[in-house]
């Protein structure tokens, strides 16, 4: 808990720089907060440079430029250059929207190490529907250009009920585009995905079938393409080791400068997440209430506190515990030992009922209008 100084604090390794909440896409599973539209202010270039310098000095080495769509920031090449000079490994996490060959070359010269392009589906119709924007052909062109200019290319596809049946075609597409890595990210149900869960959560049978196909493909392309498979935790019986433990490894900076122990943490009550405009990264990481809140094990309740697996999974995800049980100190309900575990089955049943209903409600797309309406 806050103020505890008994815990050995490890330095940050990963810095996620959410440069902006602006995005031309409207994916209904976006991990940005539902109320993102109310955060209008963005850090300026000098703020970001200071953050990068301070975090690097502490030991952060992997850097993700994310958003929103980070390409909407005009100063991206300048930030990339600053990051390279400091010795970061820079990852651009982009929809590809607005990325031209000229920009790809410019960013390479500035020192960008890798570009991760997201594609929403393997067909134009479904991709453009999910993205809420005509973007499929352009994304494929961008993927080719990323390879052409010598970057390692990660293709990221978020998996959910609308596209899970396309798994074989998605794998084929990744091979055709020459991806070095394919991230098959089963939707995590936070933010917009939580709102749209009834429409996005696949059945267990769908998951198992898709996973089998992906596993077989993994063996086929071993040595050529690496597959990162983000597990669907609703169908696990132990929670994920979220963020590798709170305040141990990951540092997220939101567009307005708020520092978060994970990108969903601004949804948790009472953390008083600090802003980089008021404090240094060192103060934030070592001394802030937010970053010490769930460090170590003292905050735990039963069944976590006496659990012999607590050092492996840290009780799971605090945001998921809060979203699904209303108690951020509780065990992640994904865990079969959790007293709230039944809410997972209820969510699965509810999604299945929605899929079978004749009048399935429409997806709520991530845009400013919906953000204002829902918050």
């Amino acid at each position, binding site marked *: 808990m806050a103020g505890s100084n008994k815990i050995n604090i490890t*330095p940050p390794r990963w810095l996620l720089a959410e440069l902006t909440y602006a995005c031309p896409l409207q994916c209904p599973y976006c991990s940005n907060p539902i109320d993102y539209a109310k955060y209008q202010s963005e850090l300026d270039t000098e703020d970001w440079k200071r953050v990068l310098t301070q975090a690097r000095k502490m030991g952060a080495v992997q850097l993700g430029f994310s958003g929103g769509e980070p390409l909407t920031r005009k100063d991206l090449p300048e930030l990339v250059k600053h990051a390279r000079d400091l010795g970061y490994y820079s990852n651009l996490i982009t929809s590809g929207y607005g990325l031209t060959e000229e920009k790809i070359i410019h960013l390479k010269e500035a020192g960008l190490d*890798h570009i*991760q392009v997201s594609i929403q589906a393997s067909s134009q119709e479904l991709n453009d529907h999910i993205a809420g924007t005509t973007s499929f052909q352009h994304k494929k062109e961008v993927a080719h250009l990323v390879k052409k200019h010598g970057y390692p290319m990660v293709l990221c596809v978020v998996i959910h009920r609308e596209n899970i049946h396309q798994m074989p075609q998605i794998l084929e597409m990744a091979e055709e585009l020459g991806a070095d890595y394919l991230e098959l990210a089963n939707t995590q149900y936070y933010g917009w995905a939580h709102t749209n869960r009834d429409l996005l959560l696949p059945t267990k049978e769908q998951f198992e079938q898709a996973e089998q196909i992906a596993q077989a493909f993994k063996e086929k392309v071993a040595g050529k393409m690496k597959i990162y498979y983000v597990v669907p935790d609703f169908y696990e019986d132990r929670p994920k080791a979220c963020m590798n433990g709170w305040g141990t490894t990951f540092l997220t900076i939101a567009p307005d400068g708020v520092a978060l122990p994970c990108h969903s943490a601004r949804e948790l009550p009472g953390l008083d997440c600090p802003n980089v405009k008021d404090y240094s990264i060192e103060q934030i990481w070592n001394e802030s209430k937010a970053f010490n809140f769930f460090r170590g094990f003292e905050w735990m309740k039963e069944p976590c506190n006496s659990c012999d697996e607590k050092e492996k999974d840290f009780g799971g995800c605090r945001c998921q515990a809060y979203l699904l049980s209303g108690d951020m100190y509780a065990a992640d309900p994904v865990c079969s030992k959790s007293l709230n575990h039944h809410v997972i089955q209820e969510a699965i049943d509810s999604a299945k009922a929605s899929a079978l209903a004749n009048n399935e409600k429409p997806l709520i797309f991530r845009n400013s209008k919906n953000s204002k309406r829902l918050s």
Partner: protein
Amino acid sequence: MSINPDQTIKFSPMHRLQWEEVQQKDVILYPEGMVELNQSSAEILKMCDGTRKLDQIVADLEQKFATTGLVNDITAFLEVALKNGWIQQN
């Protein structure tokens, strides 16, 4: 996958080998990931500059550390490195 003794070995251009001051160790960086290296692994990878073959790497390291009998350990590590895509041959 095994090391071809007749071909030179080079570190993969898709990865970066870098000294980390805070951690006091060398690391391999790649998209969204990092491998921390012990000193001997790092010394072997630094020899993979595209000019040396396996026997030259072994000879140079044995000379550098004034020892002998490293061939098995070095070969075993390079095979792991090749499988992970950290090094390339051709």
